[in-house]
């Protein structure tokens, strides 16, 4: 029937305008809108993946009872708080709100039409737990939590010209995929040695290469939720940290080296201030500069990337020349000392970096558990018990200390299994309620009568819309450690200029920006965009990209993502290529609606985009629209309109 109707329609039937000429029966006398000439969707994204996208660590279904118990303990505590403060809890989620919220929370996108429908029609009493478990072991969970950590850790492929950090990014993704214990992967990051493709965990130490003091500041901020950065230059103005303490802490990692056989000479005015690489490297660089003309710049960077390797050799740290306090003199040598607690006895004889790392992740350092417990609580509930999540201090106490300590204890009991912790939080009754408004300027603390109303993150918006377009948003994945090692590694002891050039050319074919762009465009390109998961894209993206318009981090600031409105993001939703792509022939929503009987079209559009049935008034508005203009335009308008609601952008 569809084919017949398609043929009846005069002229070409493509994209938004041709859409649903068949599915919508409403007759129209209005002349059709002029047909656009639109690009076609790349075929690869319209075909579902043929096999599993990746193998994700399985969830232990037998722990369901334990999860419920832990969730109930949190609920009991919150219920007590509600009574104490006269707070009325928000309404529990109905099934359609539940499936939308949970898929957004755990998989970072809205549910597909089929997914939402299957859940709504499922009559089994434990379908909510089952959905949570299914999502937590899906590739989209890995993608979504990768995005979270990419924002926290400022993940970038080339934070400096000489750094090739793709392996580190791949390793973070893999740590999430295999659900490694958080304390373990943190310890590994803080102590790793080698080049990024030999030991990708070194990326964390290399992220602030050349800035040993900011490295300490950022590390403590991210992992221990404490801001000691001010004390780098002077005693902290409104916390207890002194400049001396900052240097004492930094003394642990002062021996971290990031250059292979580093022969770094202090720069003096008038001399070449650059770090002097080992003699072999220096010779290679000179030869390349003489022989390779315009290609020499990038080739030298490639050599320097190979000469970048983390190692540790004990070294001392001195106070700055302008140290101004009475407890020590400028340029005094500083003995390493931690901020609180004790270095674990097992590592007292280890090197400074190992002592620091063991102290950070130790179970007796409860601040480590508090910080991650609070960070993930905020991710799930929308508001941290301490805000900002990286500013724990005496004058900024938690809004509910007892709950924070309970959550830190839970994190420890779960052996820092962050995914299991997420599973507990989303299983609470408090979370499974409608969102409530949160006013950060209010003097009254947020009482978690439900999670706070939030706009989707940039990545959630993008992955949701791509899900309305692409059956396969995974045509391209982030390169693996092995991918990079194969084309990046040079043996600097024996390499000749010809060896370097051969490997450099291979590297550029695989990872050069131009080559990468061509490959992505071929696989999933549409009008200058790549229809792929946000987590797999090169990063940071250019400022004008849809994801950046919606507030994705520039990967320069910790937790740099934003969810505030701007004119460019609205213009992108109005007129941009992403919205168009949803309406192209072959898109997921196009095909979904095409398969429906006419009377089901409105329901299908609502379920696809808002994960719910239309209300009576919605249905009236939609049907009026479908009958007022020609049906194709009407359906296109309906899709466009739903994408441009606040209900679409906000998570209720």
């Amino acid at each position, binding site marked *: 029937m569809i084919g017949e109707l398609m043929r009846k329609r005069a002229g070409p039937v493509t994209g938004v305008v041709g859409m649903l000429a068949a599915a919508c029966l409403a007759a129209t006398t209005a002349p059709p809108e002029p047909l656009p000439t639109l690009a076609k969707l790349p075929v690869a994204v319209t075909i579902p993946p043929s096999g599993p996208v990746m193998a994700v660590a399985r969830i232990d279904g037998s722990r369901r009872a334990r999860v419920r118990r832990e969730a109930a303990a949190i609920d009991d505590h919150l219920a007590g708080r509600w009574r104490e403060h006269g707070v009325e809890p928000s309404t529990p989620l109905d099934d359609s709100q539940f499936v939308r919220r949970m898929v957004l929370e755990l998989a970072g996108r809205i549910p597909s039409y089929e997914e939402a429908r299957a859940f709504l029609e499922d009559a089994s009493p434990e379908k909510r737990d089952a959905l949570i478990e299914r999502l937590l072991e899906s590739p989209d969970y890995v993608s979504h939590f990768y995005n979270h950590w990419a924002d926290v850790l400022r993940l970038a492929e080339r934070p400096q010209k000489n750094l090739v950090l793709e392996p580190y990014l791949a390793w973070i993704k893999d740590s999430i995929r295999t659900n490694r214990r958080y304390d373990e992967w943190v310890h590994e990051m803080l102590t790793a040695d080698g080049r990024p493709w030999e030991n990708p965990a070194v990326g964390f130490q290399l992220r602030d290469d050349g800035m040993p003091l900011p490295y300490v500041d950022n590390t403590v901020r991210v992992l221990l939720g404490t801001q000691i950065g001010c004390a780098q230059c002077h005693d902290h103005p409104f916390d207890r940290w002194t400049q001396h303490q900052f240097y004492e802490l930094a003394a642990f990692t002062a021996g971290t080296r990031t250059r292979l056989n580093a022969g770094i000479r202090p720069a003096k005015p008038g001399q070449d201030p650059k770090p002097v690489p080992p003699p072999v490297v220096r010779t290679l660089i000179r030869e390349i500069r003489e022989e390779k003309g315009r290609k020499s710049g990038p080739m030298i960077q490639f050599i320097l990337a190979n000469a970048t390797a983390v190692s540790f050799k004990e070294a001392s740290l001195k106070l700055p020349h*302008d140290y101004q306090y009475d407890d020590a003199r400028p340029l005094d040598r500083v003995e390493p000392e931690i901020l609180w607690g004790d270095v674990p006895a097992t590592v007292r004889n280890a090197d400074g970096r190992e002592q620091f790392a063991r102290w950070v992740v130790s179970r007796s350092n409860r601040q480590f558990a508090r910080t991650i417990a609070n960070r993930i609580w905020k991710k799930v509930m929308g508001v941290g018990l301490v805000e900002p999540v990286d500013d724990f201090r005496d004058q900024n106490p938690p809004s509910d200390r007892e709950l924070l300590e309970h959550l830190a204890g839970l994190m420890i009991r779960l052996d820092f299994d962050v995914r299991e912790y997420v599973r507990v939080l989303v299983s609470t009754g408090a979370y499974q309620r409608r969102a409530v408004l949160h006013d950060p300027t209010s003097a009254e603390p947020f009482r978690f009568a439900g999670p706070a109303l939030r706009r989707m993150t940039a990545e959630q918006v993008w992955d949701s819309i791509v899900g309305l377009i692409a059956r396969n948003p995974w045509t391209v994945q982030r390169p693996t450690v092995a991918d990079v090692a194969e084309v990046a590694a040079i043996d600097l002891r024996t390499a000749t200029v010809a060896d370097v050039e051969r490997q450099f050319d291979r590297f550029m074919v695989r990872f050069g920006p131009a080559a990468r762009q061509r490959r992505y465009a071929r696989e999933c390109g549409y009008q200058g965009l790549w229809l792929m998961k946000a987590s797999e894209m090169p990063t940071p993206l250019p400022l004008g990209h849809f994801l950046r318009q919606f507030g994705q981090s520039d990967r320069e600031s910790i937790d740099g993502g934003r969810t505030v409105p*701007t*004119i460019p993001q609205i213009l992108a939703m109005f007129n941009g290529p992403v919205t168009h792509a949803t309406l192209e022939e072959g898109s997921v929503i196009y095909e979904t609606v095409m398969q429906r009987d006419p009377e089901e079209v409105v329901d299908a559009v609502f379920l696809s985009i808002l994960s719910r049935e239309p209300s009576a008034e919605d249905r009236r508005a939609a049907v009026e629209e479908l009958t007022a203009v020609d049906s194709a335009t009407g359906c296109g308008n309906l899709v466009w309109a739903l994408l441009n609601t606040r209900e679409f952008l906000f998570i209720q």
Partner: protein
Amino acid sequence: MSRLIASADDRIARRTLLGSAAKAAFGLTLLDGVPAGRAAADAPVPTGANVIYLMMRGAMSHLDTFDPKPGREEQGETRVIATTLPGVSFGEHLPRLAGLADRLTIIRSLTTETGAHEQGTYLLRTSYPELASVRHPSLGSWVVHVLGKRSRDLPGYVLVGNGNEHPGCGFLDPAVTPVPVADPRRGLENIRRPEYLSPANFERRLALADRIDRDFRGHYAGPQIAAYDRMYADAVRLMGSGDLAAFDISREDAPTREKYGTSRLGQGCLLARRLVESGVRCVEVESAGWDMHRDLWDELPEKAGELDAALAALLADLESRGLLASTLVVLGTEFGRSPKINENGGRDHHPAVFSGVLAGAGVKAGLVYGASDAAGRTPDGDAVSVADFNATIAAACGFPWQQEFLAPNGRPFRIGNAGKPIAAVLA
């Protein structure tokens, strides 16, 4: 009505769109006490100067630009050049600005407490330290809020750069939040309807979205949703503006574009000039890349060269168009860089002293205010806090800098916090 629109020409249809749909859609009336046509009807009559603010992100080295210390070890590799002001020299990479020094006020005794980029930039943009409980308005938002917009449809405030870290309107009306332009060469992307989409159909879409969204917006009525509603309305209004060419620097001739330099900063300054000319009140142009912890002298020539071309061209252009008297140009950065050269051939963060530049409306021309000590380490008298710097900017553009404004939480705030304008700098 739809037939009328369908048969009307594009211009009429746009006006209809603006008049009816924009107001009907997006629930402008939901905004408590803020009349829909604020910019047009009851906005304050615009007074005072425009502001173009060049924001050097990463912390610009004062020693290598506006406050060199020739003959000192701390100077490193940067040589110095004479300027049009007797006895005043600049770093060698600012030759054009050296030629225009008699148009500038150079402040060499700025000082701040924080050596962290985000906090430093926040302070520079708002005069207040960053707090969890309140978001302070940025200078440009203050200025537009109090002195008013100049154009009905164009925004009052445009940011050429990254909006993520920008405090924006703070606690003020979201209407005065800056509109970010990611790439000055591309202007405002997606500002035009696709060709196949008629004005009538666009209007239908807006009305339909509005109707379906009513329940949700009602249930969650509050500042978050209101800010989005407002932004949708502003986007629709902007799409209908007849002044969109202001965002299109490709309309400038090639020699003009080249004069500003092909860098993002240069093209951003050219865009800023076009926007101010068309009635935008404040433009901030961001330029990242000053955080030179290593290999400073490899990176400095390009970065300083971009600044030299862009700012010199901007000043000359504003002057020749008669706009410099009504436009204040500011060059700011979050803090300075250490006189001590580190082991990687770079300079680390140095909040104790740094430089800033003012030119144009309300300030003296050809003045050096304040000085750093012989090594460029601390202010040598006449220290200027960031709050003082901002109060000076406010006073120079005719802003009532002493006036206190109440935030929704009832606390009073001033544009320059507790800072006072530097009398010697004001014209």
